[in-house]
């Protein structure tokens, strides 16, 4: 086991993928000499060359569009979108082309393209650098959408995403890039959970709190705080946002009878709405309270001096948990 930051764990995962498969390419803005603005690709161009770790022109549609062409040629491109708010110029290529080519070709074409997107707020950034656009991609059939929440998952999930024959939108919690944890980079991925599987972070019996990406740590801290008040909170890291691991989610909610979904993205039309609908449909007779959501507001992301109000924190998670006991 090695103690790594989440950023370094991704770096090691990418390195493994480049070593294991000569068809894997990395492409994006500043991913070469600089090693990416968050240093996730640090040192990779030096070791694998500029034909495999490609500094692209500054145009996101171009990054994804050419990655599609490379995938048609048999490559496995890993594209970096520098910040969440910069993915929209590539939205058309992702939604209209990347996600649909398998169906358009009746299964003749696979699109093993991974799109890495640093996401979420909490770092005091300027506008367009703190967004959580995952619901837009969850709504798009043909894409897999995943989010890692800790270094061990980051290391395994990036490799699993690259090996996946479907396009994967891979969200990285940017304010957790510097979180450290033990990661097994010597062993293989045999022991790692499958990419599509939701994981229990903290077991509990009173309420299920579902989260992903940057909010997993917040929810875990909330669960520990709740424990001191005698409340047993089960925290689950969704990991896969599309497809949802509904069986694991339902099993937990049927046990606890209460469910809170936590995400940074705006509450309206967010993943919490989808989960609430499905949990209500499948766990109706087990529920002691409606599914509640602790999420970002239905507003644009605010200026950073206000982001602590916008982002759900430990207290807002606990407030939602408490409210599930008032019905």
């Amino acid at each position, binding site marked *: 086991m090695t103690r790594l930051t989440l950023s370094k764990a991704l770096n090691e995962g990418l390195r493994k993928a480049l070593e294991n498969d000569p068809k894997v390419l990395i492409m994006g803005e500043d991913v070469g000499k600089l090693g990416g603005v968050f240093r996730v690709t640090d040192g990779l161009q030096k070791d694998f060359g500029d034909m495999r770790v490609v500094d692209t022109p500054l145009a996101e*549609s*171009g990054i994804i569009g*050419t990655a599609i*062409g490379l995938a*048609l040629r048999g490559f496995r491109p890993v594209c970096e979108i520098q910040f969440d708010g910069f993915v929209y110029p590539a939205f058309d*290529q992702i939604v209209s*082309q990347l996600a649909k080519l398998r169906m358009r070709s*009746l*299964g*003749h074409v696979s699109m093993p393209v991974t799109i890495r997107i640093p996401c979420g707020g909490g770092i005091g950034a300027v506008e367009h650098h703190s967004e959580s656009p995952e619901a837009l991609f969850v709504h798009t059939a043909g894409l897999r959408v995943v989010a890692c929440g800790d270094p061990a998952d980051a290391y395994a999930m990036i490799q699993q995403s690259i090996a996946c024959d479907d396009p994967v939108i891979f969200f990285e919690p940017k304010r957790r890039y510097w979180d450290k944890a033990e990661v097994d980079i010597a062993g293989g991925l045999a022991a790692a959970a499958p990419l599509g599987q939701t994981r229990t972070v903290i077991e509990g019996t009173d309420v299920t709190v579902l989260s992903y990406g940057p909010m997993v740590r917040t929810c875990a801290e909330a669960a520990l705080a709740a424990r001191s008040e005698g409340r047993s909170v089960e925290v689950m890291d969704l990991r896969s946002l599309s497809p949802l691991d509904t069986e694991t989610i339902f099993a937990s909610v049927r046990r606890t009878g209460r469910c809170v979904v936590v995400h940074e993205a705006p509450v309206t039309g967010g993943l919490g709405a989808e989960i609430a609908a499905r949990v209500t449909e499948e766990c109706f007779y087990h529920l002691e309270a409606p599914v509640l959501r602790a999420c970002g507001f239905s507003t644009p992301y605010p200026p950073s001096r206000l982001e602590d109000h916008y982002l759900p924190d430990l207290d807002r998670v606990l407030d939602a948990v408490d409210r599930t006991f008032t019905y």
Partner: protein
Amino acid sequence: MTVDADGAVTAAPGSLGLDGQQGSRAELIQLLTPEGERAEHPDYPLELTADEVKGLYRDLALVRRIDTEAIALQRQGELGIWASLLGQEAAQIGSGRALGPRDMAFPTYREHGVAWCRGLDPMKLLELFRGVSHGGWDPQEHHFHLYTIVIGSQTLHATGYAMGIQRDGAVGEDGEAVIVYFGDGATSQGDVSEAFIWASVFNAPVVFFCQNNQWAISEPLERQSRIPLYQRARGFGFPGVRVDGNDVFACLAVTRKAMQAAREGQGPTLIEAFTYRMGAHTTTDDPTRYRLASELEAWKLKDPIERVKAYLVRSGAAGTAFFEDIETEADQIGRHIRQACRAMPDPGPLAIFENVYAEPTSLLQSEREQYAAYLDSFTGEEAAQ
């Protein structure tokens, strides 16, 4: 900007031509005049045997017949829509026949002539326009990508594919290259400019083949550009050339040269095939609302097929029997298309759920099962009655 009857363009006052001088005349590469007379160009020597010219004529005539049949099938309700290639046969056959078997082609939704050259069964095109599939062919089988409907998107796919050729070490002697088709309207799309930039800075082996058919549905070229389109290439740092898009010889020669340059590692070329969309944008369009009949009449005199016929007759390479044989073959193809189109079955409703992911997800499987059960419930009711 003014367009002469011969397709040459004079830049508008205030705009700059290729040589940077106001009002400069754009050059149009032409090897076969509208009257069917052979012309020579020092940069594009072309030797064709009589059989090769006859082969090109056959291609042109047969794809026009396929197109005519498809329009009729749409009028009869057998196709939802059809995008006619009428008038653009030479641009497509000339460029399509310039490709080697390992070259890769990326079409829009109007490249029926290129599809023909690549050996794709025309019925696959009809499947798409009938609504039976979104295309459904294997791009690798004929080295012909799926039709792309969003304007200009495929220029980036082609450029990425060309970057893959570079990474496979397949540039150089006996190399491979890519050709990508798009229209005059597409040149306004950001993706096309991005593709030009990518291809240029990475020196990718890709040929950008723009069929300037003068109209983007109802919008004339003047709404897309102040300069001749081929001159755009210079700003991106690679050569651009304008060819008579109704001249199959010139399209063949110019595309051959550009593809060979790309295969050898000399990077991209923009070819502007100056042509005319003789028909409507698609079968849902009504061009009488936005363009003059006189314009169409002028272009009819430059028909891409008639000039090859005139050349074959004048040179004595082909007589009545040859043209009758082609007509007979076209009739056979027409009959086949009509029958096969009407006989084409709809896919089963549960096909909706197929090929969304490499492996079906449990969520999709469950939706599929629920919908199957819902459909079965009607069968049960009918049986009960």
